[in-house]
């Protein structure tokens, strides 16, 4: 009788919360492995098109990214609704692209300077005129490796609307 104390009825045992941090740590590890640190905040609408014949981009340090799209709603007041180029957090024009690439290239390690890829993240509704200007600038600075970054999917979804 002394070993078993009488339980008062209606007394629920407290929930053991020792495993709560474990669950949260699991989520944390998921995010740590799956994501990359953001370099720059997107100021343009960037709904990438889909393509099926895609190749994975190489490591982040060999990639220079250029964003193109219509400015976000909060910026459309000042910058309009025409697609614009965003280089490293700033709106720029096509003529700035050449200098940007040279600057970024100079920041990289010597051995990597010749194997850089330029990743073009363009909104699917942008028109090709701006893109051709960018491509011309890239050719002038000899940044010939280009990757049109897309989501994986059926390419025919791009023309549906």
């Amino acid at each position: 009788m002394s070993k078993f104390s009488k339980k008062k009825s209606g007394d629920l045992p407290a929930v053991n919360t020792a495993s709560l941090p474990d669950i949260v740590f699991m989520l944390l590890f998921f995010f740590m492995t799956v994501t990359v640190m953001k370099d720059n905040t997107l100021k343009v609408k960037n709904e990438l098109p889909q393509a099926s014949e895609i190749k994975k981009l190489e490591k982040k340090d060999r990639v220079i990214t250029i964003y193109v799209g219509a400015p976000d709603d909060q910026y459309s007041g000042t910058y309009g609704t025409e697609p614009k180029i965003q280089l490293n957090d700033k709106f720029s024009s096509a003529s700035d692209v050449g200098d940007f690439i040279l600057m970024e290239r100079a920041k990289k390690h010597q051995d990597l300077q010749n194997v850089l890829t330029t990743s073009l993240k363009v909104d699917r509704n942008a028109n090709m005129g701006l893109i051709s200007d960018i491509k011309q600038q890239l050719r002038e600075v000899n940044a010939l490796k280009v990757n049109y970054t897309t989501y994986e999917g059926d390419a025919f979804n791009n023309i549906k609307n």
Partner: protein
Amino acid sequence: MARRGGAPEVNAGSMADIAFLLLIFFLVTTTIETDAGLDRMLPPIEPPENDVVIKQKNIFQVNISKTGQLLADGNLTQLTNLREKAMEFLENNGDGSCNYCSKGKKDPTSSDNPTKAIISLKNDRETKYGTYITVQNELVGAYNDLRNREAERLFKRSFTDMEAEYIKQETAPSVKEELKEKITRIQEMFPQKLSEAETASSSSN
């Protein structure tokens, strides 16, 4: 306070708070990046010396109008037929010199050999980027389908598979060497001569 038999229990309640803080930090500062796309090479700025005469039949001209209409080799085509037409053009084998183009129709007005076949893509300034990507996708797809077919026949593996493994960081250098040989061989069978011409102005013809 009288010391109990064992060490006093650590209150685990604040561990969860620490974990939540870290989690919120990562949620806010990171993104799940899209890191795949169509890999292309731009042509260099100075035109190479044109001492090699390129016969007109070896060039497959693809034009995209500003409304998204497609002109392949002078004929109005639907996007869904583009891949097939490009494949037909590439493996046409007009002069019979290609011994792996079993399906070639040997049409004298189409390309002579896959190594001489050039696809030239031209688009208008007002063309939508989505349409452009779809066309690029189909053309690269035509090359990949032909390369995959040959790789299956020769090495029992698809070409895109071999390429993906070659690019991965984790593959051993010896495996990469072996893969590189096979990949180069297939690439020489169907070289990707896909050129992007200067675009037309918005007052398109």
